[in-house]
């Protein structure tokens, strides 16, 4: 397949994944803002930080305000990471590579884009926000379902999956990194209502609240959450899970013995995670660990672009 096509499939999947994650992030922020009055603003500030958009946000807004933040993340045209911008660009990519998509995937992407563009044509009031977020998550599931159900398991699917897991790995790591201090053992004994709520937010942001409770027999502990989101081999958004999927897809894409640079980094990364424990990670510094992970994911992505000739 064409390098350009592979690149567009990859970025289309990344953007769709990021859009969905941003919707969850807003949902988590909303949850905390609804249940508490004081400190809500700092919560919204941390949502913007997690989305990696603090600098851009302050280019257009001076202060942090719930509705401003929400609309900035949902529909701000000058924010390339707003859900609307992400869908615009995913749909544009999809349109340009229609020949690589099944009819179902194309139509799902196109329809989702139409629905979301209509939905986000005007500012969303806080009261309408839960319903709007539900629509966005549903549309995202629709596209994902079409991909899963209709795409031939060939290299096109591999590039789409690669994009999904690279983006997801990055997003989960960022969520953890913004809240990392809440997960440090030194604070474990505090266990105030605020902390419980914050932990809950982290789990909600990666859609893992129930899964975690089941796996931890209903007990919430910061170390447990960190372990679950970093090292759980079955949780589909954990760092270990994402790294494994990235390595797998790269090995399908690169038959034969010659290992690609991207695959080398991915395999090292997975190995490092598989061989460690949460105690070691916390001991060596959670923040440092997460920064390194984010950097590694970025180098994998850069290598993928080169290895598969996305741009020449």
């Amino acid at each position: 397949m064409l390098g350009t096509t592979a690149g567009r499939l990859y970025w289309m999947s990344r953007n769709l994944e990021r859009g969905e994650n941003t919707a969850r992030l807003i949902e988590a922020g909303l949850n905390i803002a609804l249940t508490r009055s004081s400190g809500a603003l700092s919560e919204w500030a941390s949502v913007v930080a997690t989305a990696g958009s603090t600098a851009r946000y302050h280019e257009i807004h001076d202060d942090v305000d719930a509705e401003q933040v929400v609309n900035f993340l949902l529909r701000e045209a000058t924010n390339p990471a707003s859900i609307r911008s992400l869908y615009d660009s995913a749909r544009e990519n999809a349109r340009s590579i229609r020949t690589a998509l099944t009819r179902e995937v194309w139509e799902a992407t196109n329809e989702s884009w139409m629905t979301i563009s209509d939905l986000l044509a005007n500012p969303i009031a806080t009261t309408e926000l839960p319903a709007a977020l539900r629509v966005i998550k549903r549309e995202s599931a629709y596209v994902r379902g079409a991909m899963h159900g209709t795409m031939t398991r060939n290299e096109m699917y591999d590039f789409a999956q690669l994009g999904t897991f690279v983006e997801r790995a990055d997003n989960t790591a960022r969520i953890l990194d913004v809240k990392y201090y809440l997960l440090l053992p030194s604070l474990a004994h505090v266990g105030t209502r605020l902390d419980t709520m914050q932990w809950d937010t982290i789990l909600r942001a990666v859609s893992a609240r129930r899964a975690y409770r089941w796996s931890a027999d209903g007990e919430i502990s910061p170390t447990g959450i960190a372990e679950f989101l970093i090292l759980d081999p079955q949780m589909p958004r954990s760092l270990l899970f994402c790294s494994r999927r990235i390595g797998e897809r790269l090995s399908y894409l690169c038959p034969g013995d010659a290992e690609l640079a991207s695959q080398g980094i991915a395999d090292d990364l997975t190995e490092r995670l598989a061989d460690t424990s949460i105690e070691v990670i916390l001991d060596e510094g959670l923040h440092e660990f997460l920064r390194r992970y984010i950097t590694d994911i970025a180098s994998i992505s850069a290598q993928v672009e080169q290895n598969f000739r996305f741009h020449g």
Partner: protein
Amino acid sequence: MTERQHFDEMFGHGDTARETYAGYHQWFSGEDTKRLITKAHAAEVLFRRTGITFTVYGDGSTNERLIPFDIVPRIIGAIEWARLEKGVVQRVRALNAFLHDLYNRQEILRAGRVPSALIERNDAFVPQMIGVTPPGGVYTHIVGIDLVRTSEDEFFVLEDNARTPSGVSYMLENRETMLHLFPELFSRQRVRRVNDYSRQLRRSLAACAPQSANDTPTVAVLTPGVHNSAFFEHSFLADEMGVELVEGHDLEVRDGHLMMRTTSGYEQIDVLYRRVDDEFLDPLNFNPDSLLGTPGVMDVHRAGNLTIANAPGTGIADDKAIYSYVPTMIDFYLGETPILNNVETWRCSDPDSLSYVQQNLADLVVKEVHGSGGYGMLVGPAASRRELADFATKLASNPSNYIAQPTLSLSTVPILTDAGLAPRHVDLRPFALVAPDEVMVTPGGLTRVALTEGSLVVNSSQGGGTKDTWVLED
């Protein structure tokens, strides 16, 4: 009884359905118009959802628009079609013979049958093609011939599209839509299939592959990109044929061949179905500022290692000033009498014709020689006094840029409006595919319809719509 001024393809000049439309009309009469209008809206949703749109630029923003689709089919009888088909094949053969001659011995010029001046001063003539005979001798592989009808048995050729004719995706999607909306109609009447087009396109392109290609030549469709107004058609055709859709930045000339960059290296292309204009094809050989093209692609073509469909320089055959010589070509190369007539044409470069046109401007249709899409065109009878005066000034300052034709009484086919059936003017673009030893015409084509009452302009960029075109079986 209604007396119709223009020939209506469903009702003739009266109000009973002509034989070709009898079956459809009977069905229509038994239908509830409201239900049909609801169905028509459903078609629009379907088009929008599947992204069958074209891009319109203006007001600093881009918009994707639908070409309005009318659900009343345009129906052509078997005998009518047989004649059209023969006429199109004849014309396409003559155009290819002309192109070959023009870029080689130029006998038609030497014989004085076509004036040399028309070629020498023409931008559509591509000197880089002199002495080049593409594989199979085919210059224009895909041709669209625009026809209009004026009476029960009179068809005229309005223009030839020999460079990169578009609209074939609408022919195919319109049929899909009709099958989807009204499957019952197709069991009542035997309509010839159009959906073989893509398979035939790939086959005829492969048949024109250069000798350097292997048994299954690699075909690719070249598009200017997602922002091009016809992008949907480009991706549609690549998808239907099962070949790669490429842009200039995917291509590179290496070791004398055109290659596309894939995830595992470079792969040779044998046949390039290009949907970009000549001047954007190769910055080394044509427009040096073009970012769309691939440097050196023309050299690969000249060396015989790549088929470009349609070949560069084919535009000289569909130039509006050359158009009036097509009957001459048919006589000169084929020794035949034209089956389809040209519309009488005054070339304003000729002083006598110019003065005729100037005196009769209000009755004529005047077109730019190189214009397309209905832009820069004057429809005399529909123009205001002011528009006529402005156009007269333009004409006087550059006469050779214009040709003029009489205003034809174009046939109408009804469209469905809220008030029921209403006649609207139509044209027809059948598509021909050219292989080295065969010209195939798909039974059907693109019917464009002027949706505004009385309007003669059918171009989609100017408010035209389309219809499904049926050719009935014997």
